[in-house]
């Protein structure tokens, strides 16, 4: 059987709350990272508060709606980021969000490798029909990576985010189980 938690560059783990809180505290100071990830205002939180959220998240992870992973590189075994899934079992769909907190690992294929692992997990372990995501129009690096993984652009909500006094679109992307399966078959032949 395939190793669900091991890609070509990264592996999925779950860091201890203390380790994760220390890293995330550092990452929240990177406002460019925040603005790539989210549409809400950047904010700073105490290590205590962050650890409480992480602990609550771990408690939630016994539920079938929420899956969180920490991400480590294979080469250095360095903890560089995270990936989360929000699952709707009724309609057999999940939403994914991911980030690389350690900037020296941007633009080197780590994000794409994380997403490939995620797709394998969503379609062969959670056995869902669809994976969805939203991304800011000003994040072309992420958009290219998602396209490479097989996501299709399904539309854009016009001007729904206001950053630095400018209106920008959110892009919505999705991949269906059948599309992912076809890509896997394509790889083999």
């Amino acid at each position, binding site marked *: 059987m395939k190793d669900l938690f091991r890609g070509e560059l990264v592996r999925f783990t779950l860091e201890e709350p203390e380790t994760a809180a220390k890293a995330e505290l550092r990452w929240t100071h990177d406002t460019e990272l925040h603005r790539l990830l989210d*549409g*809400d*205002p950047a904010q700073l939180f105490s290590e205590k508060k962050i650890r409480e959220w992480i602990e609550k998240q771990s408690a939630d992870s016994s539920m079938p709606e929420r899956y969180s992973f920490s991400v480590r590189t294979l080469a250095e075994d360095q903890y560089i980021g995270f990936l989360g899934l929000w699952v709707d079992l*009724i*309609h*057999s*769909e999940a939403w994914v969000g991911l980030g690389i907190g350690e900037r020296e690992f941007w633009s080197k294929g780590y994000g794409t490798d994380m997403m490939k692992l995620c797709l394998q997990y969503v379609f062969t372990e959670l056995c869902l*029909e*669809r994976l*969805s995501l939203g991304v800011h129009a000003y994040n072309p690096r992420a958009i290219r990576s998602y396209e490479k993984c097989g996501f*299709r652009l*399904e*539309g*854009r*909500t*016009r*001007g*729904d*985010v*206001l950053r630095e006094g400018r*209106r920008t679109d959110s892009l*919505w992307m*999705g991949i*269906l189980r059948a599309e992912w399966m076809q890509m896997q078959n394509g790889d083999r032949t």
Partner: protein
Amino acid sequence: MFDIQTQLFESQDVRFAPIDHEKDPEVEARWTHDSEFMRMIDTVPARPMSAALIRKQYEKLEKQVEEDKNLYHFMIRLKADDRLIGKAMIHRIEWTNGNGFIRLGIGMATDQRKGYGTQALRMLLRFAFAELNLYRVSASVPEYNEGAIALLQKFGFVQEVCRRKSLERDGRRWDLYFFGLLNDEWRNQPQAALPKSIGTVVSGVTPQRHEVEG
């Protein structure tokens, strides 16, 4: 001149009102026993609810309105007999981005196709754009809810996103659409205007109801 005279919560036949905790739960409970209605307005599994359960939901909703500050909720009542016929809300408001999602439902089939939904949506959009000053509003609608799609298009909503096969109902998969309307687009189309003679308070007196073209 500022138009502060136009009443935001009054239309020809319907008005917006707060929850009536005594009378509304039984009316809304009856709507939930109609699975077709439930599937039109929501993607969560339809299930029949008791008045007691609806009463609890109202309390939760009012608490959320008070604490979260990103939600406005209205009951739609018929002016003629004060009967509850539907609900409207703006929720998931992001104040820094000036956006939010709208929801609207007319509960009974017998109250549908009478222009009540149109009147309620006109009020809801005016509230969103001229009172909350939002830059845009969104609505998410399953492809099978043709009535809602026609209503949104009448008000100039643009289909922005097609989330392919993201719902499963009756053994097949359906697309879910996101519609969007910008403040400028709303301002520049005739559906936006509340009829001038309706709901305008002159010397503290609400004038008689007029027949107005839809």
